[in-house]
């Protein structure tokens, strides 16, 4: 393995802020947080996928995938991370290496590709993603990026997370490492304020950041950088001047948060935008950290005032749905972590969570789930599609909330399903998002279509038309 990647992976595995690691012995910790994948029984993306997920939301950057067509050709333009401006991140760039590149090496094609991109699109930076094949043939993307950056005067950032080094989760962190190594701290902001924060690990799916930003704007809190949703290269580059940071609970970028604390003294907390109470806690934590770092103390009171107004407003809007949703049973399968924050949110709407996935949850997460759902909490470590299908067919749940992969398990069982993954069009963050989520659940649950599709076919139970 490329020594640099190898070292980087070790450093990520040893992440002290990750309580996964805190609970492991030395040897296990070295092995890292990636389970050995089971051939023929695996699901989920690779490290390259994870790195791309983490970084591609930086909207003005050209994201160049160095590898064969599969890595970009089969996957580009497939996530709904929104931008308020530049569209370049939606352009798919790949070296699309051929047989000759495999034989003779792809570095030359990579270098020329970078030049073409800079000449045609003039981005503030090019991010170059390593992939399995080009890693295997020994293409040194760090060297090529360095040479290209020098030659063209544009930052060219190597993202060394080839697919075969591990799962998506690891790729998130390796992608983030590229920011730490090559981007963060390279530009100084023109001005700063005592209210400057970073949001780390938020990808602005379906525009969710925009459900939260008006709250921050109202409080006068300035998002110096969101890493990486609706991000800009320059913002990320100057993010080291923030006064405080929020790490969105998915932990996908805990290394960024922790290392920025180490290097630049930016304190962070782990928070969530999902659920009313979580959103309020997040605002409180932000205000607290900023005040601790010197912002005027009235921020705390203003924050509480805003929370009071917004919680009330959200509750009032949710109350309309509670009678309809009360007692409806939800099966919650998230690929991610911190499902407890979603659980709490659903309970706020009167829904009963009959099961939730804890596949990637920490011990602490699980404790919180027990706290919220009770000791009998049905925590699902890894549910097979067949089990999901059975659970839904037997109506032990009225609706499943999950990612797109298990969508058709629910649908083919003719049971309501709501997308809570990366492709969805609906935004569920903040107070607004909670109201939207409840509305969507209600809309889905009460769609008359469900009853119709469950009616037996005429060849199963004959019926007659109206006779005149």
């Amino acid at each position, binding site marked *: 393995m490329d020594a640099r990647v190898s070292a980087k992976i070790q450093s990520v595995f040893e992440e002290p802020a990750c309580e996964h690691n805190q609970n492991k012995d030395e040897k296990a910790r070295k092995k890292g947080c990636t389970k050995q994948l089971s051939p023929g029984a695996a699901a989920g993306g690779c490290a390259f996928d994870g790195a791309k997920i983490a970084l591609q939301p930086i909207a003005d950057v050209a994201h160049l995938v160095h590898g064969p067509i599969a890595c970009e050709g089969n996957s580009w333009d497939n996530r709904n991370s929104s931008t308020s401006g530049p569209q370049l991140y939606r352009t798919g760039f790949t070296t699309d290496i051929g047989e000759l590149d495999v034989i003779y090496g792809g570095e030359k094609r990579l270098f020329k590709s970078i030049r073409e991109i800079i000449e045609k699109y003039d981005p503030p930076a090019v991010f170059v993603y390593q992939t399995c094949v080009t890693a295997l043939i020994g293409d040194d993307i760090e060297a090529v990026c360095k040479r290209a950056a020098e030659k063209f005067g544009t930052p060219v950032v190597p993202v060394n997370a080839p697919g075969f080094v591990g799962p998506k989760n690891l790729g998130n962190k390796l992608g983030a490492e590229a920011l730490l190594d090559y981007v963060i701290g390279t530009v100084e902001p023109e001005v700063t304020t*005592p209210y400057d924060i970073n949001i780390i690990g938020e990808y602005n799916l379906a525009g969710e950041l925009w459900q939260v930003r008006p709250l921050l704007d*109202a409080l006068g809190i300035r998002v110096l950088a969101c890493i990486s949703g609706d991000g800009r290269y320059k913002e990320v580059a100057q993010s080291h001047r923030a006064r405080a940071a929020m790490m969105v609970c998915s932990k996908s970028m805990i290394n960024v948060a922790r290392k920025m604390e180490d290097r630049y003294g930016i304190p962070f907390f782990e928070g969530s935008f999902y659920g009313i109470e979580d959103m309020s806690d997040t605002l409180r934590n932000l205000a607290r950290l900023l005040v601790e770092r010197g912002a005027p103390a009235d921020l705390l009171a203003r924050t509480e005032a805003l929370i009071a107004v917004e919680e009330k407003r959200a509750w009032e809007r949710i109350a309309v749905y509670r009678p309809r949703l009360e007692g409806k049973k939800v099966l919650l399968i998230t690929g991610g972590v911190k499902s407890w924050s979603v659980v709490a949110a659903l309970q706020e709407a009167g829904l009963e969570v009959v099961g939730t996935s804890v596949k990637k949850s920490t011990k602490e997460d699980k404790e919180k789930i027990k706290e919220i759902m009770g000791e009998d909490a049905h925590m699902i470590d890894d549910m097979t599609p067949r089990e999901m299908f059975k659970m839904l067919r037997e109506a032990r749940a009225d609706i499943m909330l999950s990612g797109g992969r298990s969508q058709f398990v629910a649908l083919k069982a003719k049971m309501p399903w709501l997308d809570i993954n990366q492709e969805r069009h609906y935004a569920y963050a903040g107070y607004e998002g909670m109201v939207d989520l409840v509305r969507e659940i209600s809309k889905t649950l009460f769609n008359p279509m469900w009853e119709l599709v469950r009616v037996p076919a005429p060849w199963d139970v004959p019926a007659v038309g*109206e006779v005149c």
Partner: protein
Amino acid sequence: MAIVLDSKKACAVNPLKMSQPLGACYAFLGLSSTMPLMHGSQGCTSFGLVLLVRHFKEAIPMQTTAMNEVSTILGGMDNIEQAVLNIKKRANPALIAIASTGLTETKGDDVDGYLHLIRAKHAETLAGSEIVYVSTPDFVGAFQDGWAAAVKALIAAFVTPADTRVAGRIGVLPGAHLTPADLEEVRELIETFGLHPVLVPDLSRSLDGHIPEDFTPTTLGGASLGDIRGLAACEHVIAIGEQMRGAAERLEAVGVPCTLFDRLTGLTATDALVALLMRLSGQPAPARLKRQRGQLVDAMLDGHFHLGGKRVAIGAEPDLLFALASLIHEMGGEVAAAVTTTHSPVLTRVPTPEVLVGDLEDLELRAIGCDLLLTHAHGRQAAARLNIPLFRAGIPQFDRIGAAHQLSVGYRGTRDLIFQLANTFIAHLHAHGPDDWPLPAEARAAAQGGAATENVIPIIPV
């Protein structure tokens, strides 16, 4: 249960409605070797003809008695006589099918009486051509009423009780809201069970876009007089649309068992037809039909994400309105506005609080805040003003081609309709932007410590 209201306006703005005699002539176009004839001013025929030509992109045989002011006042006997003789001479149709208009109804022409005299006077000349007449004043009812009256008149004129039933013969009385493609689908469904459908009228043979070998001045294809007469010998008759109740009742009166389907769009509606066909034929459903049903169920599952919660404004004749609104409702959409052309018992069953007998101006006003306009091509102006997509349904659709092949019945038709509707919504999805979720003033004030003005944030130069 919908409340049915009438528009209170004196002036109709952007008509949704077309006239009765045109609906009658449309039915006549579904008969073979026929010349539809409007008894009125030549403009009546000309407008109707142009409308159907623009919709079907087909030559439309349709004639006029060319009434002028003088002949109107004197009565139309001479003009009908001349018209019938001219048509016989030039086109020699099997049937001359006459619909009255507002003009001749206002005068009160006794067309049945005239025809009695004309038939007697020209018995030899007219041999081999039947004549049928239906009263369809423009100032009463609408297009589908004219169609219904025409079919009723055809049955009254040509159907007498039969001694025996022909095994497997299934009559179909389709409403005016079904396209040639819909009729073809119904035919295929029936044939799938080894039964022999006879459609009256049958636009799927006359207006499906076939290419004739030679020029024909009359209709080509469609139900023959034999088909109409043979309705009496059907084992069963399937009427489609509430508008066909009267015609079905006439057939029941001569002893033919009938089943009325108020729609054939949608899963349960199609299931009901399939169940009937299984019962009538004693045959199981073929595998292909079972697959089609599965595909429809799958389309409903896939489509509900996009139709669920959508607000739709529909402008259509009663039976089409009922079919479309029911589907929208079944898919979780909201029929937020419903405007129709004429009264019908089916209107109270439209899944919406209120159905208005009105026009496209009414629909436009009620469609504010809707996600889709679902009406005929005349809705294009309203849709543009509302800045929402228009999904074309009904007649006329002059600004698209292939309207005859638009399918919305049966498993396949419903499946494709759901896809098309869903894709229309997807194509017009709103991409979220930073200003989509503004805070209310109250929250902003609270965040600023109740201050009326914004806090001034200290800037720290680096």
